[in-house]
């Protein structure tokens, strides 16, 4: 024990002063940080999970620690877990009733799915073999340095829905299907799995759109050959939440256009209608060329999956009245728009939050440079009312060269942009966009910048924090926090220590 430390111990012993405020959290013994991230309850951050290696127990077995913190960084759960070297925390999601944590051991090809109730009591542990699951789908986010599987979704006080890609013929590149697993939050209800047609010779991919206690709606994209395009034969699949039985599957067709769905805007109304939002493309567009949409669309579908209403907002005719944009959605002299999210607030206004971007090709990566923020304000009839461009600092995201031809819009549906995130309160009257950017200041030192744009009571405000220097000794990053805050995370390599603090954003 060195002298300074002895003095500190004496000081704390005698003064017993609360020298570490609760919004700061230090976790030691973090030998390898496997994963950490926010836990969301609807659109708000309710806590954090972290999973890290603490010890080597034998040639093949390792000791891990799982920690769950609340939104103020107070520790709620600390659990020791043993597993092989290749144990991943795939997902940690909350549905306002239970917390589900999913692990995957790629050596044993086993999933472990644990649920905790609101008293932090473990209510179920399910172990299942990965079977034909295309496991790269699970582990790839880690290889890309991006955490958490984006394919597991919470459904409010009901359960969780998990999408898995499955190699139906044993050869992923030849034939691909999907399986949808449902994990109920209530112990007296059964799990179920819905599998795509195993005899299909098409590549089938499923994406979550909406789920409640009655229905789960997914978009299904079918392609003849292996592709990671967002275009192809699109259909809507509705499953009964209680049984997993198919309610309907409808192909989305149009004589002139094809579509990609971004998200559902609202919950299903009393009559069973739901409004979807997305982008439309010319019928003959190349599958690989995703960045040339003609505009945005909204569509209402009824309880049988039939389209009862469609609205189109074209770049050429509608958006160009507000912003200098060409018919393919390119901003003249600027580049493309990447849409992060769509938000409908209590007064019926709809806000599409996008960012201008450019793409730079490098030797091993493709660099997406995100520039000014753009907010498209639509009225309840989906007519553009205003387009605001908010100047902000650039932020850069690197992707593997494999994705070089894909639009960020597509990449966002595939993996999360963790350092660029949108948050809102429950009634959507306040929403904010946060981003971080690392700027090289010396050979091995980068400076981290955090920016935030908040929309409150129809007013925009901006805040900017110069956080820390990132060196080879420590890594610094940010995590989404409860609205109006940001969590700053430091990992100190030598000390094997993780330090977190929550800081207020000024707006």
């Amino acid at each position, binding site marked *: 024990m060195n*002298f300074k430390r002895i003095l500190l111990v004496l000081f704390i012993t005698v003064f017993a*002063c609360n020298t570490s405020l609760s919004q700061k959290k230090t976790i030691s013994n973090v030998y390898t940080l496997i994963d950490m991230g926010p836990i969301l309850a609807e659109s708000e951050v309710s806590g954090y999970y972290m999973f890290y290696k603490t010890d080597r*127990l034998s040639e093949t077995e390792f000791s891990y620690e799982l920690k769950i913190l609340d939104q103020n*960084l107070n520790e709620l759960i600390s659990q020791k877990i043993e597993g092989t070297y290749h144990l991943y925390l795939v997902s940690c999601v909350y549905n306002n009733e239970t917390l589900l944590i999913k692990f995957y051991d790629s050596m044993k090809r086993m999933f472990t799915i644990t649920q905790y109730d609101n008293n932090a009591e473990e209510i179920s542990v399910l172990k299942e073999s990965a079977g034909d699951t295309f496991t790269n789908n699970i582990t790839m986010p880690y290889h890309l340095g991006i955490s958490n599987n984006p394919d597991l979704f919470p459904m409010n006080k009901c359960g969780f829905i998990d999408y898995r890609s499955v190699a139906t013929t044993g050869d992923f590149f030849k034939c691909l299907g999907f399986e949808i697993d449902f994990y109920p939050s209530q112990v007296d209800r059964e799990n179920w799995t819905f599998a795509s047609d195993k005899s299909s010779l098409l590549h089938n991919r499923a994406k979550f759109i909406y789920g409640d206690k009655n229905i789960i709606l997914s978009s299904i994209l079918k392609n003849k050959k292996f592709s990671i395009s967002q275009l192809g034969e699109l259909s809507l699949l509705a499953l009964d939440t209680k049984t997993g039985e198919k309610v309907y599957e409808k192909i989305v067709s149009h004589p002139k256009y094809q579509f990609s769905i971004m998200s559902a805007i609202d919950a299903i109304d009393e009559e069973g209608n739901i409004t979807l939002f997305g982008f439309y493309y010319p019928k003959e567009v190349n599958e690989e060329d995703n960045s040339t949409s003609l505009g945005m669309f909204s569509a209402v579908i009824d309880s049988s999956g039939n389209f009862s209403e469609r609205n189109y907002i074209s770049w050429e005719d509608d958006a160009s009245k507000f912003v200098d944009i060409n018919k393919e959605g390119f901003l003249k002299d600027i580049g493309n728009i990447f849409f992060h999210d769509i938000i409908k607030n209590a007064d019926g206004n709809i806000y599409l939050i996008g960012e201008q971007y450019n793409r730079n090709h490098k030797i091993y990566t493709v660099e997406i440079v995100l520039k000014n923020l753009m907010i498209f304000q639509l009225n309840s009839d989906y007519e553009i009312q205003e387009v605001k461009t908010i100047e902000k600092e650039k932020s850069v995201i690197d992707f593997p060269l494999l994705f070089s031809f894909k639009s960020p819009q597509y990449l966002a549906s595939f993996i999360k942009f963790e350092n660029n995130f949108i948050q809102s309160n429950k009634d959507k009257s306040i929403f904010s966009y946060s981003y971080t950017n690392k700027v090289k200041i010396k050979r091995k030192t980068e400076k981290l910048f955090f920016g935030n744009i908040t929309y409150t009571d129809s007013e925009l405000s901006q805040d900017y924090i110069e956080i820390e220097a990132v060196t080879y000794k420590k890594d610094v990053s940010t995590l989404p926090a409860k609205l109006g805050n940001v969590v700053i995370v430091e990992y100190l390599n030598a000390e094997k220590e993780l330090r977190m*603090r929550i800081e207020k954003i000024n707006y």
Partner: protein
Amino acid sequence: MSYLFTDPLIKFKSIMKLLIVCLLIFSYTTTNAQDSWTTTIYPDTDTVLFDLEKDHSSQLKKYDNKRALKKVYTQRKEYIKYLLNTKSIFYQDSLYGYIDFIFDQIVSSNAELQDLELRYFVSNSPIPNASSLGDGTFIINIGLIRKLVNEGQLAFILCHEISHYYLDHSNQSALAEYEKTNTKEYRKEVKTIQKTDFGKAELSKSFRKKNLYIKMSYSRQNEKEADSLGLIFLYKTNYDMNQSVTCMNLLDSIDRYKYKNEIGYYKTLNFEKYPFKKRWLEEESLIFGKKVEANYWERDSIKSHPDVKTRITFLNNYISRIQPNSNHTSMQDIKRFDRIKEQADYEFIDSWIFYDDYGKALFFAIKQLESDPNNKVLLLKTSYIFKSIYDSQADHLYSSYVERPSLENEAEYNYFLNFLDNIRLIELARISYHFHLTHYESLKNDEEFINNYNFFKTIIRN
């Protein structure tokens, strides 16, 4: 705490500390006849440290294993030096005079204490605690003094701490620790852990756990012994022995807040032109409604003190067996004690500011204001804290000065933290401005108050 931050924060904190000291001195000289105690520098610290070193040398001579204790004595001296340098301990005539009298009563009534070299310091720590460093030095926190009900309670606390020294608890623990860490078995165990390839972290944790449990078990035994002997020392004085029990009750969390009036958000923080907003008190929902204890540490095994209720039972049993010889709760003028406590309440708020906890400082200032709404000293402190919180939030350093809600906190304090958490920077400026506007007439002659008033006025106009 500063290790968490980069240079700008340390710089910010240093400037803030300097400003606090300057402001506290300035504000008291301009608005209040009483001087702030905690800003009074302890006199002649060189002589204090010289005498301490001399006493340490003579104490060390009594022990065979000087090597084991030399380092411990050096640490004690450096620690006192550190507290003096950081102005964490202070000197104030009337306060020290009051405690001197109690000290004299104890020592003159107990012949076995008369040859001992004893000294004490009062620290600005807000925590209700006193301690014995093991070399005849005792530290009494200002946070303890403000909570005590009478002189007799302070007498018992001093008797308890003197007993620790008389029984040589600290040095005996240090010697035992030295002997234990130098045994063959101990060294062998450390080497085994170091050489282990698998499960090293778990082995090392278990080893630390085992040693801590043993240490804490001795510590709890020492506390019991100090309670027993402390009661005997008190018995020989003219103080009422029952004050040992009333004093223990104060330490129990049931009686946590001295000022019972709850903060009236819709009264104290509600202004005609800026009404209090319901949204500011909305409580956030938690994933889990309770804290889930990690089962690694056994709570009772890591406590340094026995449970307060157990100590009270023990003291009551002891007192019931003997015939108390006196029933004096105080031997000095009660008004003098009341004045000390009143000042200690102000110092208590300053001490939270000193220890960078603006959340607690504001909470206790507003709580005190609920009982005394026009108290100028409290209003000035509140003005200062509002400005400090605003500055820290504007500089994105809020987390360094204000806690966030936690299940560990008392409900009333948590509710207050939730309120601070919910208000935006501009809302904080508006609340602060209207607070200053409300008290403008009574404090318009105070320069710092007017500066803060003008500052918030400018902010909300922009």
